[in-house]
């Protein structure tokens, strides 16, 4: 097996772990942690792809932008979390089932 395939195989496991977290945990904090893990996997994929094709500089440029985005997204998520905690008194996303039908 080539190095690249091994890397992406492990990335797939990391991404799987992140999605499992988002699927199985009730706490919004853990949801965000799962989200972070998936993002890390995605970043690794970009860098790995850049390294494979000798395009590492370009890939780094992308990853820098992605990190900025990630920070803002996580900040927004945490803001929503805190606000939800203030309004609903809990950080349990499974309890949010007021909108249905």
């Amino acid at each position, binding site marked *: 097996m080539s190095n690249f395939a091994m890397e992406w195989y492990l990335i797939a496991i990391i991404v799987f772990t992140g999605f499992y977290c988002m699927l199985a945990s009730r706490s919004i904090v853990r949801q965000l942690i799962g989200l972070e893990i*998936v*993002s890390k996997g995605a970043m690794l994929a970009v860098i790995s792809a850049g390294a494979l094709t000798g*395009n590492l500089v370009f890939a780094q440029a992308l990853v820098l932008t*992605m990190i900025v985005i990630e920070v803002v997204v996580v900040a*927004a998520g945490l803001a929503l979390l805190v606000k939800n905690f203030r309004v609903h008194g809990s950080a349990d996303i499974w309890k949010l089932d007021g909108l249905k039908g």
Partner: protein
Amino acid sequence: MDKGLLAYLLIPLLSAVIIPFAARNRPKLADILANVTLLAGLANLAWLALRPSIIRGEFADIPGDGFSLLLVAAVYLVALCVTFFSAWFIEEGLPNRSAYYSLILVSVSAMCGVVTTTDFFTLYVFIEVLAVTSFALITTDESGAGLEGALKYFFLTFPASALIIIGIAVMLMSLGSLSFESLRFFMASDLPAGPVTFGAALMLLGFIIKAGVVPFHTWAPDAYQGAYAPVSAHLAGIVTKVSGVYAIIKMATLLRFFDGRAQALSEMLMFLGLLSIAVGALAALKQTNLKRMLAFSSISQVGYIVLAAGLGTPLAIMGAIFHLINHATFKTVLFLNSASVEKSAGTTDMDKLGGLEHTMPWTSWTSIVALLSTAGVPPLSGFWSKLIIILALWEAGLKGYAVLALLFSIVTLAYFMMMQKKVFFGKKTPAAESSPEVCAPLLAPVVLMSGLIVALGLLFPYFYVYVKMVAERILL
């Protein structure tokens, strides 16, 4: 990035940054600044595209591919309607008033970025900006439902971002570039397409999730229903359309679905489109909440666009573009009307409403125009776009798809008629007794949009020329 349209991105951003400072002591200034910015942009656009010489020349002198310009116009139009409506809708004491307008303007700039960019990664960046602003906009009124909608929107569409990034990684590796043009040239060449289409498929899946296509639609009803009333019009009318549906159409043209090198992808997309049409329409039949019903209807209408994009022939792309614009007009009207009803009667529960046509005639009649257009009744604009889509399906030999699309168009009419009956016709309920017509400024955007629906339907030949030009340019 199309430099000619860059100003449409930068000026709202500038305005958004100015608003908090300018409106620190005068909250009304925020309304005025936002509206003036958008109005100026719209006037500029009208000058660009609707000069008599341009119309006479069959729009050949439009800068860029025309599609961007059209969508920028739609973005500005819907955003202007929403901000104008909001200016009279927002309660006086709302603490985040200036942030609200700033966010709308930032989302406008992000949408302009989305529709003018020529690079997948930049597209992703702007879509993320748009998503982040939407989360905050949904929770503007700090209600529990708004938070719930925002959180579900946040987490259920996150897989889309991850998938787009992984798709970009694959694309970077197997295509060597992320620009639209390189993908277009690659698809036109004879090189083996496997890895590139896989990368494109991952990105496409991301856009499908962002567009709220069944079975990835679950966030959409909750977000639309929970959102602050004018925001749901903004969201359903243009935001999710630009962040998801626009990108799907773009991908369909770049992957050249019409020449069959990405056949499997095209078929999957069409299947999802039809599924979306069916599930959205059937789910809308039994809704009791007006906004939720409109949300399901929106899912169903997105299905038509996705179906046409998946087909990918020039005629189908024309239909998809036209339906995208039409969807922006009629969904805006319907959601803004639901906001008016909410403001006037205090609820959007259809079981509690009834007989509003007597007290709110304008709202009732504009709703009728919009819903008839949605259901595809001639001569309103929705009829033409659905007609083009169904014709394209028929011509491509997909008669089953065409018949089903037509059938669910009838179901659309059915659930909208039920909606109209429950909310506006029939006997007055206690909630309707004490609900006067909303004030004229709240009606102005709705009436403008209804007029646009009728005008687009009646002036269809002109519009057809434009859309034809767009389809020719983007399918080159």
